[in-house]
């Protein structure tokens, strides 16, 4: 379901937004618009949608309009043109009071510069959103404590923001948004000040939160690794405009422009490529019970392979048989394939990153099976295939 729809949104800063808008619509580059009118185009005609329960990461270089764009979503900035729908409601049509209620109901926001209130203690900062809604005191305190615990700041409630490190302050900002338990989280570089360990924890926490509670999250990041990890889809901005929207895979494997390619170059591709994306379809399998040694041997010959995966009637993976052993069976006149079935084989799940596949593949003489949670065979990975896939996608490993 579409949660947020952004349609042709433009945000221009300056005294003559109309004039600048006309120039923009005529296709004038934004540097020219700045020269001619002195107006800064923050967001230039951006459209995309965010589905319910999705994490969309907005990326781009500094000044590309990321913060401006999210601020338009809850109308901290009034868009110069365009429409924004949240749950089907046109945000730009809301009156003052309606907008206020809408913000209370729908959004939690984390700010790039933290924006903590220096005169309020940590717990009072976290309670702010609930307090504004007029929540019950005890309930408010309890929710705030829970949120603080989530970000690993249990027991820090009585301190003041100035007594905390940058990373801790950022987590207070995070807790302030989480305490509201909002439908939509707008997170402007919410993890930028965290050290790598806590950062990874927070990323995992966010993914958990989104999966278990179906939050819709718009996340701004500078860090491609982070974006690829948490993003269901990425929106890449340049000079206020979208250059590419797509899943991490699409962005990595089919960068739309040189700009995106440069962006992506840095990334360690083995962390992003998964078993699923490098596996190939298994051409043939033997069915346990119905296929005897002769049939299995024929299938191997036909496909010119030295081993064959064997599946049960319910299509779950039973094991593997090898050509030489099957031939022995045929020679002996045996008819039960399971005598030579090897069941203790290496299996991986489809989201195993390529970096973990390397050590597994190292001393394997047969393909690795990729299975889903029901043990059904999805595909296989052979050594050469893994290297080819990585080489093709420009990895430097």
């Amino acid at each position, binding site marked *: 379901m579409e949660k947020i729809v952004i349609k042709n949104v433009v945000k221009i800063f300056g005294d003559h937004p109309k004039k600048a808008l006309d120039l923009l619509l005529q296709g004038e580059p934004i540097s020219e618009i700045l020269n001619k009118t002195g107006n800064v185009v923050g967001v230039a005609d951006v459209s995309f949608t965010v589905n319910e329960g999705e994490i969309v990461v907005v990326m781009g270089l500094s000044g590309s309009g990321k913060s401006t764009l999210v601020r338009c979503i809850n109308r901290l900035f009034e868009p110069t043109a365009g429409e924004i729908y949240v749950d089907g409601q046109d945000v730009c049509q809301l009156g003052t009071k309606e907008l206020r209620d809408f913000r209370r109901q729908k959004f939690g926001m984390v700010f790039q510069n933290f924006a903590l209130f220096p005169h309020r203690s940590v717990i009072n900062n976290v309670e702010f959103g609930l307090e*504004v809604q007029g929540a019950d005191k005890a309930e408010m305190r309890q929710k705030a404590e829970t949120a603080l615990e989530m970000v690993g700041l249990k027991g820090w409630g009585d301190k003041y923001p100035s007594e905390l490190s940058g990373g801790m302050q950022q987590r207070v900002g995070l807790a302030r948004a989480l305490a509201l338990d909002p439908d939509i989280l707008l997170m402007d570089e919410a993890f930028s000040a965290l050290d790598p360990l806590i950062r990874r924890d927070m990323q995992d926490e966010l993914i958990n939160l989104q999966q278990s509670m179906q939050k819709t999250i718009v996340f701004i990041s500078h860090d491609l690794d982070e974006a690829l990890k948490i993003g269901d889809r990425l929106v890449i901005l340049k000079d206020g405009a979208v250059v590419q929207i797509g899943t991490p895979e699409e962005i990595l494997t089919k960068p739309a422009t040189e700009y995106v390619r440069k962006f992506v170059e840095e990334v360690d591709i083995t962390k992003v490529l998964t078993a699923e994306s490098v596996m190939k379809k298994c051409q043939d399998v033997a069915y346990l019970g119905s296929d005897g040694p002769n049939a299995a041997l024929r299938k191997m010959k036909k496909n010119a392979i030295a081993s064959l995966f064997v599946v049960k009637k319910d299509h779950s993976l039973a094991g593997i048989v090898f050509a030489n052993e099957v031939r022995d069976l045929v020679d002996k006149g045996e008819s039960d394939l399971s005598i030579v079935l090897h069941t203790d084989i290496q299996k991986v799940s489809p989201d195993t990153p390529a970096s973990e596949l390397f050590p597994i593949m190292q001393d394997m003489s047969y393909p690795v099976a990729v299975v889903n949670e029901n043990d059904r065979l999805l595909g296989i990975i052979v050594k050469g295939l893994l290297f080819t896939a990585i080489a093709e996608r420009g990895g430097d490993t």
Partner: protein
Amino acid sequence: MSFELPRIPLGKGIEATLDFLVENLAFATRAFSTVADQGLRFIEATLLAVHPVLMIVIVTALVFAMTRKRGITVFTFLGLGLIWNMGLWVATVSTLSLVVVATLIAITIGIPLGIIAGLSEWVYRIVRPILDFMQTLPAFVYLIPAIPFFGLGRVAAIFATVVFSMPPAIRFTNLGIRQVPKELTECADAFGADRWQKLIKIQLPLAKTTIMGGVNQTVMLALSMVVIAAMIGAGGLGSEVWRAIQRLQSGAGFEAGIGIVILAIILDRLLQQLASKKR
């Protein structure tokens, strides 16, 4: 050949305006008179209710409780003792009462005005030139319009003092509100705070120190004006100075002057302490 430029009747015009206002604002002036007069009587009566020595001890204890500082506490005790010793106790109480009443009225009007000016661009644009203009006028000028409204006496003195001492309260409050970082008010907006919540929970607490600085200035200006207002019958330490000048008694004038300085120092330190108090 003599040519005389026709004189622009500015003075006449102002007189006419004042007359008009005096007649038509009678209800307001009467209300002001009542508040000022009653306030004065009450504070004076309270301060004079007990023997000066006891009062000095009480005040000293209060100062210590508020500041927790030895220096200013000792100074308060000795200073007030000296005032009493010089026979200026009643005059000082009278001056202090004038200052307190005038300041209370000035900040009751000034702080809300400052808040409005801080929140609204167009109010600010109207208020600012008026404040600038008021600041350039010499203090004496404020005495003049007070007389037609209130006649000679303490109420007129308070009126002139209120008008004279209000600008810093407005200015500093306005400044304090405007100094609140935009990202913080924006954050409050993002969480759906309404105007009032934003003001009470964010803007005022963050502007507090600056506002208290303005209050301090208001008090100091009020004190200086109350002395000048002795010319229109304010009484108190100011009239001691005034009388000494007229009779060329430099000693007596000096004593009254010391009394004013002592009062000023105590008030200033107390208010600074209040302003710098954390959270």
